């Protein structure tokens, strides 16, 4: 799930004791993002941090948190936005393309296999039943994940109200998404500004 988990980095703790990290070559970098894409279940962001910061040591904790923070103020999947920025840092626009190719290309192979099976067996009664059950569970997973992050964040009353409005406007009233986002984004930012002591990560 690429839902926006807050970055929980210790503020400004770049480890000065570490040796300078060599920038990765293109192939090593691509393979790292291939691994991140294929491990994606449970949040590609968590895996990206683990691979880039802990395993390879190409980025410091602080640098990764900065990229993720910027990725979260942009539209689109956070993990992909982050991949673009990290790729660009090491190998320019080509690096950004390599990161995207890795994080999307890896999972594409199993996904195409699944799509092929679906095209072939999708109308078998047992498969239809399994997919009905899976879809209901997947919808529940989407709801449960959002609730889990929301309860963990313990937002201020104003921020919670903004979130509730977004839910009600799109989920219950079925208002147009663009209008809802444009109307609520300034309110959310205002609410966050008014409650700076309860920013991301608590």
């Amino acid at each position: 799930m690429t839902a926006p988990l807050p970055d929980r980095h210790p503020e400004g703790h770049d480890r000065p004791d570490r040796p300078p990290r060599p920038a990765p070559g293109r192939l090593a970098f691509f393979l790292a993002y291939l691994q991140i894409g294929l491990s994606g279940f449970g949040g590609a962001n968590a895996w990206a941090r683990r691979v880039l910061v802990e395993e390879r040591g190409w980025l410091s904790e602080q640098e990764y948190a900065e990229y993720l923070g910027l990725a979260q103020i942009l539209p689109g999947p956070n993990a992909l936005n982050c991949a673009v920025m990290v790729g660009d840092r090491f190998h320019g626009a080509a690096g950004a393309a390599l990161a995207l190719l890795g994080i999307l290309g890896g999972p594409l192979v199993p996904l195409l296999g699944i799509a092929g099976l679906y095209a072939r067996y999708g109308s078998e009664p047992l498969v239809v039943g399994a997919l009905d059950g899976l879809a209901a569970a997947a919808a529940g997973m989407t709801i449960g994940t959002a609730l889990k992050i929301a309860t963990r964040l313990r937002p201020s009353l104003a921020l919670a109200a903004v979130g509730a409005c977004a839910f009600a406007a799109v989920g219950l009233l079925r208002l147009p998404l663009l209008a809802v986002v444009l109307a609520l984004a300034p309110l959310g930012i205002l609410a966050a500004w008014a409650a700076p002591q309860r920013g991301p990560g608590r």
Partner: protein
Amino acid sequence: MTGGTLALLVQLALTFAPLSLVAIGGAIAVLPEIRRQVVEVRGWVAADAFMDLFALAQAAPGPNMMVVSLIGWQVAGLAGLAVATLAMVGPPALLALALGRLRARFAGLAWVRVTQAGLIPIALGLNLASGVVLAQAAHQGAVTLALALGTTLFVWLTRWSPLWALAAGAIAGMAAA
């Protein structure tokens, strides 16, 4: 490639690219809108098939946005997959490229953190809305309703991998078929 296919691919790109720019927190946030466009407005994908693709994408490894790739594939095969994926990824990626290059100027600034904190509840609200809309669009029956509720509670309140609940959903659905 026939003119009809090309026109379809262009329409696909024009449907997804604008949505990519309001996908706060990721593609799941815009999934109800995508569903409205491809199922109700354009009639490209049957309602049942849309839910099947959502289910398969959630159960497969990879970023959540790949449900969009599957929808593109359903609409226009491999070319559709490529176009839908690029349309969903491209516009935000260009923004990310630009913002990333200004990182030194922006990172750590108070307004970035405030903006981030202010958008997170919106992303969560939209994801919650997507879950509810998709649950309503799923097959309606006592078993599927129980599965949606059960998975919600399982994912919300336990630390177990959601894959267990998805597997249970598929098995229960098969048993009920």
